[in-house]
């Protein structure tokens, strides 16, 4: 399983009144020195199959087609490694194992 994170943000030249409203609220809460706030969206997508370039390409296509409106927004696609590095690592090693002779150790790892 590949877990991909897509961050969608308004382009820098597009005014973000929501971010501005948040920024204006912060000094009232005692947070000084806030220079700018921009608000965006984060999507977490789980794809079947290994965490490889093809998975990233699919996520990029999804972002381009639906998640972001590229007229006003830009997006960034990456694997979610911070969240669960163990689960991100095991599909990759399982995928490698499919190319070689199966062994008891690999079977155990793939099942975990």
């Amino acid at each position, binding site marked *: 399983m590949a877990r991909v994170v897509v961050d969608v943000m*308004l382009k820098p030249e*597009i*005014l973000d*009144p*929501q971010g501005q*409203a948040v920024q204006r609220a912060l000094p009232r809460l005692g947070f000084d020195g806030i220079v700018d706030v921009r608000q965006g969206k984060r999507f977490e997508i789980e794809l079947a199959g290994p965490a490889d370039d093809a998975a990233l390409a699919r996520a990029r296509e999804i972002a381009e087609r*639906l*998640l972001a*409106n590229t*007229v*006003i927004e830009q997006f960034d696609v990456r694997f979610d490694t911070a969240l669960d590095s163990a689960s991100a690592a095991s599909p990759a090693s399982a995928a490698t194992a499919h190319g070689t002779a199966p062994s008891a150790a690999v079977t155990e790892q793939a099942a975990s």
Partner: protein
Amino acid sequence: MSARIGVVTFPGSQDDQDALRAVALVGAEPVALWHRDADLHQVDAVILPGGFSYGDYLRAGAIARFSPVMEAVITGAREGLPVLGICNGFQVLCESHLLPGALIRNGGLLFINRDERLRIESTTTAWTADYAVGQEILIPIKNGEGRFTADEHTLDELAAEGRIVARYLDNPNGSARDIAGIANAAGNVVGLMPHPEHAVEELTGPYPGPATDGLPFFTSILKQLVAA
């Protein structure tokens, strides 16, 4: 034989009944279209009504754009089918890339609901022939994401090609170049943030009037279709 004008109902559409009523008022045949319809039931024109299709999830109009009926509308529009997108319908047309630019959150973050004075800038579209260039009209707006935006090049192009259909006299939301509505290059597709279907009868139109300044959008298309 009267013209058949379809009005699409998406889940979350609100002004579909008003649009159907406006179509009937001018003497055209209103045809209710459903978002799951794969074909357009031989209509001669289509209206995408206001509301909050699919709850405005993701972005206003973003999910509606991929509904089965929109595939037929997009194909038809490219072949010359007259399409009017009102409010949420305008957002759907931008998401479909039938019209350039996008509609983003209003400058003051407020949902604005009031009668708005507009100036008609183009009468060469399928939907505005019954107006005069420079004519000032009163039409209600009601939206939270009605601020039109596009890059400078696109805005210049829209202005140069006479594709800005209507401008706000008193810009309510920071819309680029006071734009309230635009057309595609062929003039068959028009997107409009204000609601002409709410200004078609003395009883329910803007008060104190003029109450029926929205009617020419509907008489324009009817005349064009009958003449065709």
